[in-house]
C-alpha cells in the first residue's frame, strides 16, 4: 500500500457537500456523467448550489434532476441546447446561467487544477462573452484574461479505480473528468469497477490517486448509464 484507503459509502461522501457549495460534475452528455452521485445529491437535497458542467444533460437525467429539484442557483456551462428545461428556467430567470466557450471552460478548470490563477486568450474576443472580462495587451495583441475555475467538490465518473483513487476513464467518458478531478478542494469519484491497489497499470492511469479524496464503488449501474433512445 502507498496510501490511504479512500473507499467510502456514497451517503458519507455526498453528505460533505453543503448548501451553497460549488460543485463540478464530469461528463459530456451521458458518457462520464456520475449519475449515481448526482442522484444521492438529489436525495440529500443540498440547495443553492453552483454547478459547473459542460452541458445540462437531457430532461429527466443528471444535472436536470438537480434543476427540477430546485437545488441549483447557478449553472456554469458551454451548452444547454439539449435540455429545454434548462433553457426555460434561464429564460424565466429562476436559474442563472454563465456560458463559457467549451475549450475555455475546460482550460479554466485545468488551470485551477494546475494551481494557476488564469490565462490569456483571444477566444471569444469579438463576442458578448468578452463583455465583463479584463483585457490586457501582449506583443501588440489584445487578449482576454480568463480566470481559473475551482470548486468545493468535483463529482467524477471512472470506469476503473483502486482504493487509493487512481482512476481510468473509457471512450468519450473521459471529457471533463480528469480536469475536474484536479480542480476541486474535494474530489469524489464513483467507479464501475474497483480493483486492488497495484492492479491498475501505472502507464494507463489517467487521474493519479493524490488528487482524489473519496472512491465510491457502484455495484450496479442504473438505466441512466445506458444507451439513450432517441
Amino acid at each position, binding site marked *: 500500500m502507498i496510501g490511504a484507503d479512500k473507499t467510502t459509502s456514497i451517503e458519507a461522501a455526498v453528505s460533505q457537500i453543503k448548501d451553497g457549495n460549488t460543485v463540478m460534475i464530469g461528463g*459530456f*452528455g*451521458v*458518457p*462520464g456523467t456520475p449519475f449515481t452521485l448526482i442522484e444521492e445529491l438529489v436525495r440529500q437535497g443540498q440547495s443553492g448550489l453552483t454547478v459547473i458542467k*459542460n452541458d445540462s444533460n437531457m430532461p429527466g437525467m443528471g444535472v436536470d434532476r438537480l434543476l427540477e429539484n430546485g437545488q441549483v442557483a447557478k449553472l456554469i*456551462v*458551454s*451548452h*444547454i*441546447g*439539449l435540455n429545454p428545461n434548462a*433553457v426555460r428556467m*434561464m*429564460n424565466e430567470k429562476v436559474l442563472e*446561467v454563465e*456560458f*463559457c*466557450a*467549451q*475549450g*475555455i*471552460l*475546460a*482550460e479554466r*478548470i*485545468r488551470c485551477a487544477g494546475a494551481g494557476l490563477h488564469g490565462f490569456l*486568450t*483571444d*477566444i*471569444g474576443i*469579438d*463576442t*458578448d*462573452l468578452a463583455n465583463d472580462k479584463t483585457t490586457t495587451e501582449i506583443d501588440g495583441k489584445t487578449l482576454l484574461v480568463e480566470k481559473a475555475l475551482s470548486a468545493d467538490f468535483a463529482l467524477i465518473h471512472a*470506469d476503473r479505480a483502486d482504493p487509493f483513487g487512481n482512476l481510468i476513464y*473509457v*471512450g*468519450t*467518458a*473521459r*471529457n*471533463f*473528468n*480528469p*480536469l475536474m478531478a484536479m480542480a476541486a478542494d474535494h474530489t469524489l469519484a464513483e467507479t464501475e469497477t474497483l480493483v486492488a491497489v497495484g492492479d491498475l497499470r501505472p502507464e494507463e492511469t*489517467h487521474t493519479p490517486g493524490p488528487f482524489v479524496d473519496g472512491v465510491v464503488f457502484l455495484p450496479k449501474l442504473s438505466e441512466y*448509464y*445506458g*444507451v*439513450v*433512445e*432517441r
Partner: protein
Amino acid sequence: MIKRATDEIRPGMIVNLGIGLPTRVLDHLDANLAVCLHSENGIAGVGPSLSNNDADRNLIDAGGTYVSTLPGTSFFDSAVSFSLVRRGRLDLTVLGAFQVAANGDLANWKIPELFTPGPGGAIELAQKARRVVVLTTHQDKRGRSKIVKECSLPLTAAGCVDRIYTDMAVLDVTKKGIVLREIAEGLSVDEVVAATDATLIVPDTGVVTF
C-alpha cells in the same frame, strides 16, 4: 447542398463537423476517404455512426450520436481536444448558422430572449479552424435571409467564414463582399439575389448550377 459540401473534404484533412446539418455531410462521403474527423468531446478519428443496438454507451460524438472507432483513433480529455482546435490543427470546420454577414461574421449561438443553446465549441472552431465553411438553409423558418449585410444577433466569431453552402446557392466570402459562385438547379440568379439580404457580387464569368 449537403452533397455539394462534401467537395470540401479532401484526403489527409483533419475536420470537425458541427452538430445538425454539418454532420449529415458524412452520409454522402466516400467511406474510404482518408480523413480524420475530430469531435469536441475527445475523439480524433471518429468512425461510422452506430444504431442503438450496436452502440457502445461510452462512445458518442459531440452531437450525441453513437459512433465507432477506426484504426488509429485516439481519445483525449476536453482540454486536449480544444488545444488541438486552438493550436490550428483543424484544416476545416463545417458549422451551422443563424446568420452570416457579408464580412464573414458568424452568429450561431444566441437568439436573445428566444433560444440560447450556448456556444459549445463553436467559438473556438470558428475562430481557429484554417477554413470555416457554413452549411445552412438560405432563409430561416420565417423566410428571412440568413445571409445578411450585418449580423443582428450576437456573434460567435468575427470575419471567420470562408464559404457558405445553402439550399439555394454556394457563396464565397471575399474582401470585397459575398460572391455568388453557384445556384441550385431550377433557380435564377435574380431569385437568389432577391432572397438574400446581403448584396451579392455576381461574377462576369457567370454562375454554375448545382
